[in-house]
């Protein structure tokens, strides 16, 4: 089982949405990362066969998908970015309609729908109208639709947007299990969704594929570029202005633990010396930190870092009571959790502010890009 994407190109008017992308998908979970407008959705639509490439070819097991037609569509499931449904549809109607679209026989339809409703905890809302469901539930209905025909190739465009942390974890586990002998391609802004489960990741930027590999391989690209230090809160604005800060955490003594990206420690050292003046602070010396996929993402998309860092800063200043003169202070974990919404609890560990900021940088990135926003 193999899906070959061979030099695919797609343009819209004067914009090249996908530019000469080649990759070969094999069974496992594939994460497709990239900022908004990177071309992920266009690429997925072409893989789903609902958009025609201007150049290049997509082949499944060596055969062009254009020649396989219905047979190809029989073996894949697709969850579009925008979940659509007819307003009069209940969950039951929607899934039965989707089953009819996929050509499932009636006797199989009922069995399969029952399985999926239980798997995705939708049994209670089976007869409810979709329009009355919450965003997360609607998303789960969409996921159920994609899984209806037990596809060999599953294409999910931002499947976890709107899911709460518990649902995200369950969904990730479900996908991991499902992908044992199938190809699962997930497009997402939420790096943690693919960090733990993706067999391989591909990163898109401006329509092109700029990196591909396992999480471990990709993370090596930012090895030695991730730093952390603990600084007095008054230094923070300068750090935010001059460095790519990816994470902040308030320490008990009023200082701030900063995680940032830099080519080397020199820049941060210079900054530290300038700010510290005569005073020397051992904790303020930057030390290398273990890189994560999120760091790579933010390294590759620096505009997101700057944007998010500013957003974080603004949000912190707005939402949190000012304790010290800097405007930064401590907040209880529960409050942090409520502020961060869905980004907490993916690990099931106790919430710390550092975690929430880290997680939120993913969510806020997607939210802001969608025009919604946490900023």
């Amino acid at each position, binding site marked *: *089982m*193999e899906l070959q994407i061979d030099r695919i190109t797609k343009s819209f008017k004067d914009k090249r949405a996908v530019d000469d992308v080649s990759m070969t998908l094999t069974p496992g979970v594939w994460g497709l990362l990239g900022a908004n407008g990177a071309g992920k959705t266009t690429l997925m*639509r072409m893989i*789903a*066969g*609902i*958009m*025609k490439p201007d150049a290049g070819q997509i082949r*499944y*097991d*060596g*055969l062009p998908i254009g020649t*396989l*037609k*219905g*047979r*190809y*569509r*029989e*073996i*894949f499931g*697709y969850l*579009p970015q*925008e*979940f*659509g*449904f*007819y*307003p*009069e549809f209940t969950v039951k*109607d929607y899934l*039965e*309609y*989707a089953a*009819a*679209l*996929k*050509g*499932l*026989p*009636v006797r*199989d339809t009922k069995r399969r729908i029952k399985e999926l409703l239980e798997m995705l905890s939708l049994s209670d809302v089976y007869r409810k109208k979709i329009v009355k469901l919450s965003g997360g539930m609607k998303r789960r209905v969409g996921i159920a*639709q994609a899984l209806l*025909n*037990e596809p*060999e190739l599953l294409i999910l465009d931002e499947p976890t947007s709107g899911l709460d942390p518990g649902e995200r974890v369950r969904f990730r586990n479900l996908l991991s299990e499902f992908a044992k002998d199938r190809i699962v391609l997930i497009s997402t802004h939420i790096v943690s969704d693919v960090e733990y489960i993706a067999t391989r990741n591909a990163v898109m930027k401006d329509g092109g594929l700029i990196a591909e590999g396992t999480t471990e391989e990709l993370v090596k690209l930012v090895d030695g570029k991730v730093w952390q230090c603990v600084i007095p809160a008054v230094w923070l604005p300068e750090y935010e202005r001059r460095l790519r800060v990816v994470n902040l955490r308030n320490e008990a003594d009023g200082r701030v633990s900063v995680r940032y990206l830099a080519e080397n420690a020199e820049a941060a050292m210079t900054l530290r010396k300038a700010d510290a003046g005569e005073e020397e602070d051992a904790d303020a010396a930057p030390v290398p930190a273990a890189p994560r996929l999120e760091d790579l993402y933010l390294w590759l998309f620096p505009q997101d870092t700057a944007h998010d860092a500013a957003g974080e800063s603004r949000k912190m200043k707005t939402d949190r009571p000012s304790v010290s003169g800097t405007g930064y202070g401590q907040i209880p974990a529960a409050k942090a959790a409520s502020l961060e919404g869905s980004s907490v609890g993916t690990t099931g560990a106790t919430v710390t502010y550092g975690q929430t900021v880290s997680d939120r940088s993913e969510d806020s990135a997607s939210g802001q890009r969608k025009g919604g926003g946490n900023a």
Partner: protein
Amino acid sequence: MMSGGKVSSGKVSSRDFEKCLRMAVKGGESERTKRPGGEKRGLAEQVKPFGNRQQEIRLNGGKRQVEKSMERLPGETVRMRRTAALTRQEAEERFGRYAGCSGIMRGTGPRSSFREFLLLQIRFIGLRMWAVQTVLFTVLGSVLWILMGRGFWQEERYMARFLCRLSLAAAVSSLPFIYRSFRYRMHETEASSRYSFAGVLLAKMLMTAMGDAVLLGVVFLGAVLGTGLSVGSTFLYLLLPFLLASWLGLSLMGRIPATVFPAACMAAGAVLLAAAGIAGRLWDGFYLQTLTPGWLAVCALITLLCIRQAKRSVRDAVYPELQIA
């Protein structure tokens, strides 16, 4: 590809290799694909019949022969081994490709037919559309009955005018149902389904046509039996405006953004209505026509245009991006 050198051990020659490769790549009958009784075995056993079965059986045998030849090469030169490895790789690649094809060609279990799909569409789309149309025309008929009285139905000129407008309304009210999936963002899900967007669009068109045919049929019978209008005139004033409105609507499909399609259909209906009104004022005999060979030819021509437009829409709808415009 091949070294062309003679093999010193005499176990296998380059010619044998070429033969094996040919069999793997192009196909060749193998003894090992058949059991003594002539029964086939190997991978071919697992593969349900499809168009290239014979080719697959040959490939299966070809690959085994290559493997067998490889096993007989313990004392060969480095060059020969390299060639053997390349041959094996190429044969396996090609074989794997065709074997992989067989997986998808086997299909993924039983699937419902288009007829069954169409019947299900009645439940999901047809009933709602027909209910809306029935309510719309029942209300329209009742209002006219109350306002105009019994005399209205006996006056040939009024009746022709009424049928013309009703026919336009029938076409205009049903067309937006075809494009409903764009309005509610279902088109991507529908397009990625087994029948693709073209199949779904075709099903919706058939559904619409069925509904309109029943509706116009009932009106036709009612008009013929209960009014003073002749059969020919009733047929003409019901069919011609309907065909014209349908042709305009189908022509708009895929040429304008889906979001404005319902409004555009309404606008097209309004234009036709206005045109009929103006024609009625300018030409006294406009509402006194009957079905002549000339009008029949016009109806046939517009029917052909409608079919052409419908075919175009279905053909283009393979990739719904063309419909999104």
